[in-house]
């Protein structure tokens, strides 16, 4: 368990500024996500930590030691990639053992470590399969086992779930979180998916155009966004003009009334989106000619398109802009 610290990192690709004065400290054992849209610099930050890119300015340090002069293969970081990265010529066991082979361990030690890792990722029975015989989700599990087998000081996860099917994605998400909790490895996770970032992280760093807009717990970035960008990027948001300017309101901070006189704004239901436990109701407000989305527990309101309804606030708004 080691801390990883970025200080004043700057990185340009030609005229594009990928990172500008990027500062972030990941505490030992912490799971931090970098969340942001395409091109916000999140992957660049991870690749600088891994040693695959060189910062133009600033330092990355691991447990207080500057990493700059150390080449990628001596940094002792485990990495899981977005695309399937298993060595196609090696079976699962040999893939997991790959990083151990170069560390001069006895073969019995290696075998034991591989067994242990396969058990952690729940693939004990598949040690002699080859990568092309595995599903995408299994391949990413093996990649995780391979990265953890070398007992890295930091685990770097570069959108490891984004090539997977929805269902596999959510299972593996829970599992990565469990494994990280059990091993206690300091983890930097890069994603563009806010659900993943909120669900998995101790803290989330929301990025935009090479800068960290906010770093905080999932609750904080969701419920107390530091900027309109964070409010809009993390979770759904309604933007409603009011006396205080345009207020940003989460769909669950609104409630819907079948009686048009009960709420603050009157409108017509346009559509409803069934989500299982909850249903989203889209309402076009009369006065503002604007769509507003209301989050309701399924069954509380049926939301037939065309119904006249009114809406009021039950929670606070996040920001006024």
């Amino acid at each position, binding site marked *: 368990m080691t801390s990883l610290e970025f200080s004043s990192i700057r990185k340009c690709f030609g005229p594009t500024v990928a990172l500008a004065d990027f500062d972030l400290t990941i505490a030992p054992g912490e799971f931090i996500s970098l969340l942001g849209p395409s091109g916000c610099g999140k992957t660049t930050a991870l690749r600088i930590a*891994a040693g695959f890119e060189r910062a133009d300015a600033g330092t990355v340090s691991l447990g207080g030691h500057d990493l700059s002069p150390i080449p*990628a293969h001596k940094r002792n*970081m485990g990495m899981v*990639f977005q*695309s399937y990265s298993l*060595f196609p010529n090696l079976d699962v066991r040999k893939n997991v053992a*790959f990083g151990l082979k*170069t560390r001069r361990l006895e073969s019995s030690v290696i075998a034991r470590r591989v067994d242990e890792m396969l058990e952690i990722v729940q693939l004990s029975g598949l040690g002699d399969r080859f990568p092309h015989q*595995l599903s995408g989700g299994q391949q990413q599990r093996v990649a995780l086992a391979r990265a953890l087998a*070398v007992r890295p000081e930091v685990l770097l996860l570069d959108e490891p779930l984004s090539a997977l099917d929805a269902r596999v994605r959510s299972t593996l998400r829970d599992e990565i979180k469990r494994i990280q909790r059990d091993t206690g490895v300091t983890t930097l996770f890069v994603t563009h998916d806010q659900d993943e970032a909120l669900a998995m992280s101790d803290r989330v760093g929301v990025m935009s155009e090479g800068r960290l807009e906010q770093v905080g717990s999932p609750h904080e970035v969701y419920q107390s966004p530091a900027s309109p960008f964070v409010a809009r990027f993390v979770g759904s948001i309604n933007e409603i003009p009011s006396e205080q300017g345009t207020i940003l309101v989460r769909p669950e901070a609104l409630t819907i009334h079948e009686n048009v006189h009960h709420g603050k704004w009157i409108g017509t239901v346009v559509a409803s989106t069934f989500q299982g436990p909850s249903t989203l109701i889209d309402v076009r407000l009369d006065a503002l000619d604007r769509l507003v989305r209301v989050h309701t527990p399924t069954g509380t309101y049926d939301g037939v398109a065309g119904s006249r309804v009114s809406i009021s606030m039950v929670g606070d708004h996040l920001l006024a802009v």
Partner: protein
Amino acid sequence: MRGRVFGRVVAPLILLVAAAFFILPLFAMMRFALQNVQVIDLRWSNLFDKWSLAPLWSAFSDDQFGRALTLSLKLAIGTGLISLLLLVPTIVWVHLRLPRARSTVEFLTILPYVIPAIGMVAGIMVIKPHARWFLNSDLSLIPFYVVLALPFTFRSIDSGLKALDLRTLVEASRSLGYGWIRTIVHVIVPNLRTAILSCLFLTVAVVLGEYTIADVLLKRTFPAFMGEYRGSDPKGGYGLAILSLVVTTLIFMIIGLVSRPKSARRRRARGTT
């Protein structure tokens, strides 16, 4: 509907006609070499008459045969190894660092194929008096053969690398503690096995097929020996040509079978219906 007609009738027909222009001359040559019948008398009616391997056996027993074959094999091995040592790191480097330049480099490697051999020969003749120290060695053919084989050696390594997710594999290897050289040895080379194999056999084919440069430089390679031997015994000479051709073709077929496409992988991994 038309797609089906094309698939069942037209496409096989095209392949057949193309094959005919390729196979018929070879077949005729085989009859000339190995049938003990006057050329003027060769007809369909005597297709099965008087076949004999005797012209081949007498070619084998020529005392130059062994020496020429040995030299050619040495050249083949040298050409193959040097091609690999130059190409594998260079192409890896181009793929990772200059991906935009890849197609330009690919284009340049075609040049040895489109430039008339006669051009190179003329050049060598002019340069010869100034480079005797180098050209006197039998192995001085190797660099020329490396260049001649480039159009295909480049392509075989290149398409082998293209089939890999090279950048990710290299980064995975480096993040696991392997430096550049160990990454090439332990990750890239093992995953290029079939590409390397076909690269090697291609250099063999070039070395066994090239006659002009060897002749100009007065090297007694196997093709040069064949050319000369054909002068004294046409049937035996053409018999040797057929034999080397059959051997080459067989090798290619074998490589073709060994290097089965692995394209199914990704699709299965993506996991869609």
